[in-house]
């Protein structure tokens, strides 16, 4: 291996990237766009959910209960209606996520000491929203119920009945349950997938498509030097983009960075090496841009988006899919990122993530060099 030949290839690649203004823009803009996209667009903190209320009684008690919904930041009472069909229509066309129906004998039942059921018609087509909504509603009703009971008991001489149990719940690492804290660190993995595999496989597939790769091969440069020289600039770009994303996450979206820069650097470098080699491998196999881009998308971006724990919790997937995620590098990287950002885990404690990443990096590098040799022969 000759160092001069290697740098020559790398220099050629850099000039090529620099001349193509559009790809240069992509390198800088894409990470920013993705961080902004997920920072602003992906929010699971459900608040001000639109609801309709139908108070069939209209008494002091029922109004009292509704006021609690009004006061909560989780609900937004869009309208109070006077008929059932109005509620149904609102849920059908998506105006309301929930219709709260207070029965006509609400206060009567409370006074006589029986159980009264408040009906909640919930649009469950979005199961997550429905779930959270049910939880909030349950909490409001439970509170109300407890107070009514306490008052009832007091009136009958049963004072001083403290609640038997108090839940002292603390949330660690993401104290206010900010969904941006949970999502943005994972964006690094997406950006790297786009730069590392998608862009790289496209650029190299183009050389194959246009026949310039054969020209390169006919020079004294060895295949290994070609591969290394071509990938090196993208390695630097990838790391630069990772840094850019991290800076945006920390300073723009105020995601805490509790870990060490070293841990971030090492895990990013390992992940990037695996991706670059995979991208190279794809371009060698596909040799055409349309196919290369599609394969790269399916092999790197989609898994990073879906199967890495970036958005969807891995432990909630079916067992088969959980096993599949074990052969996806992004899974380990996303897990490492979340630990580095939120938990402050040092590099030495991240062995469960770092070792698989290192194995992937070595495997992919071997695979890429082998295929490249074969195709040239």
């Amino acid at each position, binding site marked *: 291996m000759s160092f001069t030949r290697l740098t020559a290839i790398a220099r050629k690649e850099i000039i090529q990237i620099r001349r193509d203004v559009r790809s240069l823009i992509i390198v800088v803009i894409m990470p920013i766009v993705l961080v902004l996209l997920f920072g602003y667009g992906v929010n699971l903190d459900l608040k001000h959910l639109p609801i309709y209320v139908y108070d069939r009684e209209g008494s002091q008690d029922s109004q009292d209960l509704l006021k609690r919904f009004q006061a909560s930041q989780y609900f937004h009472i869009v309208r109070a209606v006077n008929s059932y069909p109005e509620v149904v229509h609102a849920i059908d066309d998506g105006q309301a996520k929930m219709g709260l129906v207070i029965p006509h004998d609400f206060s009567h039942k409370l006074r006589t000491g029986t159980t009264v*059921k408040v009906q909640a018609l919930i649009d469950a087509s979005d199961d997550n929203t429905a779930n959270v909504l049910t939880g909030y509603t349950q909490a409001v009703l439970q509170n109300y119920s407890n107070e009514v009971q306490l008052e009832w008991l007091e009136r009958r001489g049963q004072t001083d009945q403290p609640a038997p149990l108090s839940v002292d719940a603390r*949330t660690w690492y993401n104290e206010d349950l900010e969904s941006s804290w949970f999502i943005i660190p994972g964006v690094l993995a997406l950006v790297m997938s786009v730069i590392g595999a998608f862009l790289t496989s496209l650029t190299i597939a183009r050389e194959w498509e246009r026949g310039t790769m054969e020209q390169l091969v006919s020079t004294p440069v060895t295949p290994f030097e070609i591969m290394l020289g071509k990938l090196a600039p993208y390695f630097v770009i990838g790391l630069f983009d990772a840094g850019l994303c991290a800076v945006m996450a920390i300073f723009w979206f105020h995601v805490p960075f509790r870990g060490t820069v070293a841990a971030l650097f090492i895990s990013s470098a390992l992940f990037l090496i695996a991706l670059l080699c995979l991208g190279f491998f794809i371009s060698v196999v596909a040799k055409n841009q349309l196919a290369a881009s599609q394969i790269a998308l399916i092999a790197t971006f989609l898994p990073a988006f879906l199967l890495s724990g970036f958005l969807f919790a891995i432990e909630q997937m079916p067992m088969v899919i959980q096993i599949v995620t074990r052969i996806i590098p992004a899974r380990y990287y996303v897990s490492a990122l979340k630990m580095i950002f939120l938990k402050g885990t040092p590099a030495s404690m991240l062995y469960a993530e770092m070792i698989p990443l290192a194995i992937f990096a070595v495997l992919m590098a071997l695979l890429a060099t082998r295929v490249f040799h074969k195709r040239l022969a």
Partner: protein
Amino acid sequence: MLSRLKQMLIKEFIQVFRDKRTRYILFGPPLFQMLIFGYAANFEIRHVPTVIVDFDHSQESRELISRFSSSPYFDVQRQLTNREQIVDLLDRGDTVVALEINAGFSENLRKGQTAPLQVIVDGTNSNTALIASGYVSQIAQGFAQDYQQDRLQRISPMLVERIPRVELEPRPWYNTDLKSRWFFVPGVICSLTLVLVTTLTAFAVVREREIGTLEQIMVTPIRPLEFILGKTLPFFLIGLLDVALIAVVGTLWFGVPLRGSLAVLFAGTVVFLLCQLGVGLFISTVSSTQQQAMITAFFFIMPAITFSGFGFPISTMPGWLQKITYLNPLRYFLVVVRGVYLKGVGLDILWPQVAGMAVLALLVLSLSVIRFRKALD
């Protein structure tokens, strides 16, 4: 005019279906993505990994623990013996919820005082944390209520029988079992259609330009409008075929109910496809190489999916962003498809969505046709 158009269509179909790879790309990846998405995209929270430390070892504490271990929401993995293990497990991400029952728990309960239950939740995944905390307090509430009732029973059985209580009677509509899959599968059908039709149209035109065959076609007597029609019509038909394919697979494989009318679904799809053809055509007018087209398409597709309500409710986005989403055709299409699938509603409710898409389609199509004709001259 018709015969020229017919020739053009025949040429396009031969071109698309001759190449084995393209043939595969048209139908393979969409199906594959449908399956992966269907399994992975899931916000359901079940079997949350949970550990418990019980310092009390009483009948009461065991009763509380058994409520957690018999719940489908928690997966009580281990009973620990000391507090330090909790920190370690949470740090490494091996558990999400940790419960701690202090010594003296049962004594407090028996004396009629409030017994604290310590709960630590890993907030890294904010959504899981939020919903899991809700379940924890539900179980704790249930325990407290039953205990309270037992206590009152002992004091005065009459009181327990006649105590007011407000209960929630949740009625989740459209998706009674709150299955995440029912929410996501129709969404995946929409998103895949978007990706496919946009990229295929953009690629088809740009490839002719890149290879140089566009000039050849332009010297034939074909008129620009015929060329545009000839180029886009095949993808319109392929798009429809793809939607049908993934819709059938998604519906049958994942068992998602199709409650509305196929005609409404078809009408919505046609209007949406027109929109996407316009977008694809537009992308082709601003790109001169396939790589550029791919990247431009990527920059369109990512925000389009993120800001559509595909996985994240639009109502949680910042106000200015919510207004921008009205320019996103996918936003309307999702409402139509989910409406037809889950709610079984018809055009009487969905017409505003279809109208919105139609307006967008008209705008985008005329804009891109004008641009395209200019680019040809």
